[in-house]
């Protein structure tokens, strides 16, 4: 990251805004006439991390790795099977969101908001922009009438839309504009933490650039904290302060963006980085692409030992039997691999 961020969000002395401890989320698999539970999909399996105020932490991984489920547990769309989600509200003690019931959660729902991937299905086509963005203000009795309109208009201005559009319906907007509406809706109650689930994945590159710039501007202005869930590593590299890589429900590596991209410690991170297409034809045959054999493991029936061992080019006997614990190798650098110290893995630049 750039120099100023090293002082601000990278500073480990700040108490984290959110700390997730040993989060588990299991979905039952039901079969037969009596819907008997025959097994569990361990979508999130012992995940721990923290996010500091003003920081962007990205969760990356392939589809089915549990990154979205983790995000949904934090906004409490799902009730986690076990684990803690410690949230530090302003001038309050830390509270475990995982324990609260719906009524007690209400004040926190204002502070933790979500932006969704698909700007076409996440806005109700029968509501006007005023209704969509203003809904949470109305429900929480923050504003009504002409004050509500003013608030919505200023939110629209903030995300770069013209306030004249306030009475229009979602169909009149392009994908990028709809994503801005989704962002305005998330900002309505002055949130502190925003969970952005693949917020730019469905957008074209030029629109994606606009939205990424907007998210960064808003972070600076409002001191927002982002949990950014994405699969596009060049976007993640651009926007994040720290990155957590997930594989089959577990975090396999967590580090600052710079460390993770230049000097990955987990073989899966290395493979992910090597698979990213570089936007320069002159780099085409430079470097080695690591082809991952086989498929992502089944989270209802994961392999023994390290979940990544069947696809790992460096796997040894130990990996088959012994599950590697997530350990802190350096300050703020976590990895789950037996051989993290011995392996010499290639980062982004070395490949490119």
């Amino acid at each position, binding site marked *: 990251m750039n120099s100023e961020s090293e002082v601000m969000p990278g500073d480990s002395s700040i108490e984290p805004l959110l700390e997730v401890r040993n989060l588990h989320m299991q979905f039952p698999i039901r079969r037969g006439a009596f819907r008997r539970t025959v097994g569990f999909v361990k979508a999130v399996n012992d995940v721990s991390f923290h996010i500091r105020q003003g920081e962007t932490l990205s969760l990356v991984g*392939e589809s089915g790795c549990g990154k979205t489920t983790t995000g949904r547990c934090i906004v409490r769309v799902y009730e986690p099977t076990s684990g803690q989600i410690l949230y530090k509200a302003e001038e309050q003690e830390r509270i475990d969101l995982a324990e609260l019931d719906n009524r007690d959660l209400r004040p926190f729902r204002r502070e933790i908001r979500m932006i969704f991937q698909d700007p076409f299905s996440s806005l109700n086509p029968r509501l006007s922009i005023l209704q969509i963005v203003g809904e949470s203000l109305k429900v929480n009795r923050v504003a009504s009438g002409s004050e509500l309109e003013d608030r919505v208009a200023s939110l629209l201005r903030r995300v770069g839309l013209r306030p004249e559009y306030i009475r229009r319906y979602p169909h009149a907007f392009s994908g990028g504009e709809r994503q801005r509406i989704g962002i305005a809706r998330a900002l309505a109650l002055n949130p502190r933490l925003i969970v952005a689930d693949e917020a730019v994945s469905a957008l074209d590159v*030029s629109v994606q*650039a606009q939205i990424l710039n907007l998210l960064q501007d808003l972070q600076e202005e409002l001191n927002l904290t982002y949990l950014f869930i994405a699969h596009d590593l*060049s*976007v993640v590299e651009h926007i994040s302060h720290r990155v957590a890589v997930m594989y089959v429900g577990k975090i396999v590596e967590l580090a600052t963006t710079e460390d993770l991209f230049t000097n990955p410690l987990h073989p899966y991170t290395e493979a992910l980085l090597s*698979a990213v297409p570089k936007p320069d034809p002159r780099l085409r045959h430079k470097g080695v692409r690591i082809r991952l054999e086989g*498929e992502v493991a089944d989270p209802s029936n994961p392999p023994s030992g390290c979940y990544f061992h069947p696809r790992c080019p460096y796997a040894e006997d130990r990996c088959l039997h012994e599950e590697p614990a997530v350990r802190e190798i350096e300050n703020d650098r976590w990895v789950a691999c037996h051989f993290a110290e011995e392996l010499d893995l290639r980062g*982004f630049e070395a490949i490119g």
Partner: protein
Amino acid sequence: MQPTHTRLDDPAKTDSQTLLDVKDLKTHFFTDEGVVKAVDGVNLSLKRGETLCVVGESGCGKSVTARSILRIVPNPGQIVSGEINFQQRDGEAIDLARMNPKGREIRKIRGGEISMIFQEPMSSLSPVHTIGSQIMEAILLHLPVSRQEARKRAVSMLDLVGIPRPSEQLDAYSFELSGGMRQRAMIAIALACEPQLLIADEPTTALDVTTQANILDLIRDLQQDSGMAVLFITHDLGVVAEIADEVVVMYLGRDVESGDVDAIFHDAKHPYTRALLQSIPRYDSRENRRLYSIKGTVPHPFARPHGCPFHPRCDDFIAERCNSIDPPRHKLSQSHSVRCLLYSAADEAPPKEDALS
């Protein structure tokens, strides 16, 4: 069908190496609200064994161009003018634009000489037929073989695209396979009759990076072995840099710039191409954390700007000229051409730095 850009069309151009030559193709959609000019004058040409990438943002007409070639443009779309010259295997050149889209001839070409793979393998494969029967259908339609031989060939196709245990997977349904395997199965169907041209419409967009890398490798390997040409449609410039030989950049139904991949990435001329290249997040852009973004949005299809379609969003807009003159295709070199008044005036290329530096 008057050629409006005489500068490019010398008659000797269609040599035997050219497999596909699309000239000034226009595909319009006649809706109740008006005419949507989805493709409005596209030119592209593809040599045997080559990979041509068509890039552009949503709504630029890249998919409609691909569908026009196979004549599978959905209603109310119609090809209104232009040529799609295709060199058949027997050496005879035909104009696909003139064919009856429901006729025998085009059906012989679809799947036989030209195949297509789609973005979403789940919705383009039949859920009620096994993978094997879908491959065999293509083989039995186009090749004079028995069912047994077709089955054998289907197994070898699945093996070729890297599906493990091919003889077992032949009887699998599409929902039993993972996303990457489904895409491999679709490639197997497309390649079953050894087409000369494979049209791939965003084949890796719905896939994870690791799977995408494997599928790109697969397409490249298959191409090397069979010598087929690939028309690859994508919005991802990273993918373009990985696989393209030639690139066509499209904006609002036009080819705004075309050239070999190195020229497009390192010597881009059209302001739109440059802007696209600058909007991708890059690993080396450590200093400036803000991305370049093109001002404004893609105009509504009913409100096409006059003159150059890009002029309302262009940084190098020349008043009086760009909004009135439709820029002709201007040839910068043998392979590089651009539609922009900055260049066609008097070859006065403005000194602009490399888009990548």
